[in-house]
């Protein structure tokens, strides 16, 4: 399974963070990969609409796009506008951000 996270918006635009970041679950520690797979399942990700949350008033909100591709070749994207109220989608988003941060830390340790 591959998961991509794209982040848009917020109080500033960062080209580096705006690029979609791919996570190949096969290359993650098994417990992280398992937690992510479970989160995708519990969020019923493939049944979610293309956009969750409405762009009401306000400014500087972040918009996340999660794309999941499973090993059977199914691919689906969901755009989340914060605050993300649906608990399972929020849990998935939290796990992805955490995994991304861990990846960044290990990349930094390898190439200081």
């Amino acid at each position: 399974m591959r998961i991509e996270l794209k982040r848009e918006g917020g109080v500033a635009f960062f080209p580096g963070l705006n690029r979609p970041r791919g996570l190949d679950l096969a290359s993650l520690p098994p417990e992280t990969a398992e937690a992510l797979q479970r989160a995708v399942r519990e969020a019923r990700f493939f049944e979610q609409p293309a956009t969750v949350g409405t762009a009401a008033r306000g400014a500087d909100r972040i918009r996340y796009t999660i794309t999941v591709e499973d090993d059977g070749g199914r691919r689906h994207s969901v755009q989340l506008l914060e605050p993300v109220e649906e608990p399972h989608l929020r849990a998935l988003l939290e796990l992805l951000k955490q995994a991304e941060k861990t990846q960044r830390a290990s990349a930094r340790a390898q190439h200081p």
Partner: protein
Amino acid sequence: MRPHSRHRHSLHCILPPYLSREIARNGTREQRERILRTLSIDTTFRSMRVARGAMIPLGQRLIPSPMMVESQLQRTIYDMKNTEALPGTVVRTEGQGDTSDVCVNEAYNGLGATYDLFWEVFARNSIDGMGMPLHAHVHYGENYNNAFWDGERMVFGDGDGDLFNRFTIAVDIIGHELTHGVTEHDGPLTYFSQSGALNESISDVFGSLVKQRVLNQKADQADWLIGEGLFTDNVEGVALRSMKDPGTAYDDDVLGKDPQPGHMRSFVKTWEDNGGVHINSGIPNRAFYLVATQLGGYAWERAGHIWYEALRDPRLRSNAGFGSFARLTVMAAGRLYGSDKDEEKAVRDAWNQVGIRVSRERAGEPAWGPGVQLPQQAQQQPPTH
């Protein structure tokens, strides 16, 4: 009726009626002019709005003149305890002393500094001009890398500690978020493309003025950075944006390079970031910086008044482009300080330097209103910048 009891800030209760009377009587000529200019904002717009009749929504009624109103600073800080379930728990209300939580205190003081700028300099009573209570929610989410305005309140994350520090650390960011509320009430400027970039720029302008006023800095002493202190040491960069030199705030392996242009020739056309609202805001940001440094002194005094006047101008449409906003600032400068004076010239020159030309004819008289003759030639088209 306001449901909460309001704290009355004794100094603010007295200041406008008493002090402005004193200044009018005993102040220097400059002080007198300044106070009269503040008081005149209302009547200028009253006549404009009468002319525009029913087009002004009821919610946008004129703020009472400062002679008749008292400060209604009323702050409430909520602790989200790292959840995202708004509103969280109240941890500090108006008049209460410092807590042991630095985020709470920074938010409280930042709201106060922003309120004070709008009240003491622009005679505006809070976000809506009618004393709206201010709510800030700190410790939102886990490692949350953002601060936003949700239409009613400000929300601040703690940052992940990896790229970002806590978002209350920068007082200009607090001012930035609150100013989104002001723009929503007065503009409003649609959060997309050029009008969205203007919306963003106005938040940076007044956010920066909040910071400069807290630090008591004149235009040439300010760093004109937005969000200085937000980055951790892991990031190659000084701030989120630079109004003085857009595009130079950061250049980092993870964040990428600051994409802001400072001139129309580098205007970025994109569908991302709501059509580049945080990108192209560099252009009007730099125009404001140029006006403020050209005029000298405290940036909120003349440059700030000109921008505020333009923001409140009923002719500012929700889909305004840079060109039409530029034109309103030139007209505001002429209205406030006299036509063809240094101020109007500085504003026109500044826009010119970022690639936006405001012609003399178009910046002259309003295109509508009582007694205005329409030009003989073909009717004016809306600016197409």
